[in-house]
């Protein structure tokens, strides 16, 4: 998870207000734009993908992984996290509403694999996902990724 934590550093925005899924993806894209990881066109491509193919990027309850193609404007492999103040609907039959949005981009089909695998493991651990929802700061988020002891649930 260390590499995932390193990738996310400086790319976390907490308790962001978004009216709908489209604004949520746009704000998530802006986090990567500001970090110099992607071009603005990539953000639009992420939105277009959801519109055209559907909300299948909402992979687990409450969590969306918007992304588009390498050629849509990725400058370097990157991942971010936007946590929404209020969950929004992506139109997912099974995993709405969404409050954790991890936008990612990769300049080819390989560079992101290790980080995506780490993210998959993180998301398969309900305790850690709950900890991401409780975290107060980016530092807390990174600590969850690095495997810091979790506060007891409900505390």
């Amino acid at each position: 998870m260390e590499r995932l934590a390193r990738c996310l550093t400086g790319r976390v925005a907490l308790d962001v207000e978004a009216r709908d899924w489209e604004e949520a993806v746009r704000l998530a894209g802006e986090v990567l734009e500001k970090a110099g990881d992607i071009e603005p066109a990539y953000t639009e491509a992420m939105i277009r993908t959801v519109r055209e193919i559907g909300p299948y990027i909402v992979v687990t309850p409450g969590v969306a992984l918007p992304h588009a193609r390498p050629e849509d404007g990725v400058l370097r492999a990157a991942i971010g996290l936007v946590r929404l103040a209020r969950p929004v609907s992506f139109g997912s039959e099974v995993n709405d509403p969404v409050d954790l949005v991890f936008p990612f981009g990769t300049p080819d089909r390989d560079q992101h694999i290790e980080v995506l695998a780490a993210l998959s493991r993180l998301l398969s651990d309900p305790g850690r996902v709950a900890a991401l929802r409780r975290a107060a700061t980016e530092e807390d988020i990174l600590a969850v990724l690095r495997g810091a002891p979790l506060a007891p649930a409900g505390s």
Partner: protein
Amino acid sequence: MPPQAREEGHQVRVVALCGMGFGTSLMLKMFIGEILEAHGIKAELHAWDLGSFKGQDADIVVAPMDMKKHLEDYQGRVVLISNLTDRQEIEEKLLPVVREFLDAQP
């Protein structure tokens, strides 16, 4: 289109499907690989996007539940997963289909 031969030594070809072929499907493929390996099943695994999938042959397709409408016309074995990071759901839905496929082989 005739079925392509599976790679030698593999019992079943499983294709994880998503919109792009390198994000959501890659996550699925990772979990599928771990599950089938744990059960001693030698599977040829692919992560494909919708565009590449058309006309290609898979023994079993695994896709997110939210892509159901894209697979309505597909005649083969399909496993739809709601929670893509829930290993138990993937295992409970996929294994019976894999076993049924293997049993049906000559």
